[in-house]
């Protein structure tokens, strides 16, 4: 008894002569489909699951129940419960951010003292001993070295704290539960539940988040996940959020609450990002990316005690250092560019000043200013260098003296009183701070992410959509916040 089998999908057949009644059957199927309604797939999956569960219940007994099974279940019942799931998620997120913010302060300060406070004078004395021309030592030390040192001192401590914490949660088995909680929301937004996992990766780095969307099978839903990944606040943007939140928003509260208030406002921005990803997913899936939502089964793996030392080791090697290296490679040329545009003068005015003055009207309209917009142009390669660029350009345009080390020098200062003086001189208000935090969340992805999107989608069109949509949204959001803010402030 040999049964023939032709491999491949398209077997020889005559397309012109379908069996009788085929069209009628298809039409009937179509009609019945409308009759049953949209949730057919879900209903079928549920039927299968119910049957499977009934059969399994009859076949499996567990006389010697192991307590771990029960513990797993009770944890699951808690962390995926309708009532407690989301509050627990937020509490955990806040705790992670709070530990990161407060824990990173001291090492950041130490690194800044070492790399900038001690490093810059040392390098300058070496340059002087070598008789380097001023422009070369300026470019190398005040441009490239300072930019790099700043990025390292600001990024390394939070990353070295955040990534291991995050990886521990992952190792413990919590992330699939987060995906489970968010699945329903993403489904309602017309996206894939696994998008929550790629968003999680995006909180580390959007380029990594975009690559992580590979776990999503449907091209339509994957595209949605790629386009909205930018709203996961990446670690290149935390320094901005954390600094501005602690200066302007933490400053509104008394000293003992400042840390928590700053952490909460950063969590608020992160949540706003998640909310925006829902909204954008929703509108994309209702307009240009219409289609069915695919069901997937997500395995909730057993909880395992995290392997602490191994996790810390691998997350520092795999994540922290790789991300840091990327930031450094972008900070080097960016530092050079900032130094150059601040020191090349045309008609007595530096290029940077020309740019700032040119963009100032638009910036003010958006509740920002020209300096911030220039900083965002300079920082297209890496969001990490936004704050140093803003500080340097503000010094340049306001002419505040006694801070930093002159034109085109990115500097680090942890003295918040000095920073406030500087920002006030630059015309900053609470509105500027809030809108900077908003714009930091809602603007185009960095060039690495854009390139990754192009590699993953292979489409110029979708790359452009993914890059420009958030930028347009950022302009719209900041514009309206500024207008409403001024209206309310004017009325008071």
């Amino acid at each position, binding site marked *: *008894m*040999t*049964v*023939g*089998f032709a*491999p491949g*999908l398209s*077997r020889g*057949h*005559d*397309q012109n002569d*379908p*069996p*009788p*009644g*085929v069209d*009628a*059957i*298809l039409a*009937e*199927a179509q009609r*019945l*489909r409308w*009759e*049953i309604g949209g949730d*057919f*797939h879900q*209903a*079928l999956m*549920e*039927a*299968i*699951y*119910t*049957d*499977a*569960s*009934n*059969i*399994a*219940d*009859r*076949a*499996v*007994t*567990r*006389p*010697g129940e*192991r307590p771990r*099974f029960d513990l797993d279940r009770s944890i699951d019942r808690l962390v995926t419960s309708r009532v407690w799931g989301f509050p627990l998620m937020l509490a955990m997120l806040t705790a992670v951010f709070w530990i990161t913010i407060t824990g990173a302060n001291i090492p950041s300060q130490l690194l800044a003292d070492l790399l900038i406070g001690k490093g810059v004078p040392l390098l300058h004395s070496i340059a002087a001993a070598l008789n380097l021309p001023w422009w070369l030592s300026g470019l190398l030390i005040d441009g490239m070295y300072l930019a790099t040192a700043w990025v390292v001192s600001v990024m390394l401590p939070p990353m070295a704290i955040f990534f291991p914490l995050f990886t521990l949660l992952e190792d413990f088995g919590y992330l699939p539960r987060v995906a489970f909680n968010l699945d329903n929301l993403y489904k309602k937004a017309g996206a894939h539940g696994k998008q929550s996992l790629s968003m999680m990766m995006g909180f580390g780095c959007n380029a990594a988040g975009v690559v992580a969307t*590979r*776990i999503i*099978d*449907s091209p339509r839903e994957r595209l949605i996940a790629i386009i909205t990944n930018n709203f996961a606040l990446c670690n290149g943007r935390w320094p901005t959020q954390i600094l501005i939140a602690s200066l302007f928003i933490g400053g509104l509260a008394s000293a003992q609450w400042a840390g928590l208030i700053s952490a909460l406002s950063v969590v608020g921005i992160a949540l706003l990002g998640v909310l925006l990803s829902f909204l954008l997913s929703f509108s994309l899936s209702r307009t240009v990316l219409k289609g*069915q939502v*695919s*069901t*997937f*089964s997500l*395995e909730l793996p057993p909880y395992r005690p995290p392997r602490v030392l191994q996790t810390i080791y691998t997350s520092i090697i795999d994540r922290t250092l790789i991300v840091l290296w990327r930031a450094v490679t972008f900070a080097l040329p960016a530092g050079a560019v900032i130094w150059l545009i601040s020191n090349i003068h045309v008609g007595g005015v530096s290029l940077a000043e020309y740019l700032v003055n040119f963009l100032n009207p638009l910036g003010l309209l958006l509740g920002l200013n020209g300096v911030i917009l220039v900083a965002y142009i300079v920082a297209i390669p890496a969001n990490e260098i936004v704050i140093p660029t803003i500080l340097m350009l503000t010094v340049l345009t306001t002419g505040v003296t006694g801070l930093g080390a002159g034109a085109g020098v990115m500097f680090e200062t942890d003295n918040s009183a000095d920073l406030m003086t500087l920002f006030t001189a630059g015309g900053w208000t609470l509105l500027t701070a809030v809108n900077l935090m908003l714009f930091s969340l809602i603007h185009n992805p960095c060039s690495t992410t854009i390139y990754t999107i192009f590699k993953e989608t292979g489409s110029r069109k979708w790359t452009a959509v993914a890059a420009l949509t958030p930028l347009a949204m950022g302009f719209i959001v900041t514009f309206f916040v500024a207008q409403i803010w001024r209206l309310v402030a004017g009325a008071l």
Partner: protein
Amino acid sequence: MNEHSDRNNGHQAAPAASDGKELNFSEEVQLLSGEMPDDDPNFTLTVQPAPAGHSAAGCATCPSHNAAHLQRLGIDMANWNYVVALAGNPNVGKSTVFNALTGLRQHTGNWPGKTVGRAEGGFEFGASRYKLVDLPGTYSLLATSLDEEVARDFILFGRPDVTIVVADATRLERNLNLVLQVLEITDRVVVCLNLMDEARRHGLVVDERRLARDLGVPVVPTEARQRKGLAELLQAVDDVATGRVVTKPHRIKSEPPALKQAVGQLTAQLERAFPTLPNARWVALRLLDGDPRIVEAVQRGELGELDAA
């Protein structure tokens, strides 16, 4: 190589596996197929001419007898009598079963998108030569992704003579979701209830007879890593392939009434149009779900043609 062709042509079936000559042979076969020497006495490899008939008919249905007649053929899949598909969730030991039966060393990654192809190998058991096709591990056959589509298309259009669904005994409920979906497509299923050792360690007792009764197909408990239960598995596969055992597969019962009615209506129509279609109900389900691949198959008459095959 000479030895190999020699065996296929000339040798008579060696009796049991206890004399020195026989052991030499098994070693050679093992080397040929890249398998480490195997100390399980149930799995001594013997030599058998391809379409040899079995003389002792009474023994033919006894697993312990036939166990001695597994010959791993590696990638030699010529002149097979039956095609067997190996389906199952990811990480349930499918590849372990595949490797144990074919003597190959198939590596399947655990990354979605990596294992979208299928691995094939051959073995000889009892009087028949089998081609074994290892499908990508999937949780479902509703074809939302490429790997699910590969698995689904093979079971549906490739029409294997038997489909072995490897299930993880420690996570039976989740695994049954796939089993039930396979049962909707094909009657000829054997469930390989693997990882029984792990289930025992977790204090689980799985009643495979109850399960077999509920599913309506043979259920064979195995511990593939220890090579336990594979002889019984092969016997069950052989029984289903040759038609000695006729299955009565479970059909999904818990659909909402509206759904059940629509499915019934469409199934009746499909059965009228394609009288020999074995899985009209499943096709109806897929059409109702708007599965483009199945709509296309119906349109192009692929399903009708399968009937003629």
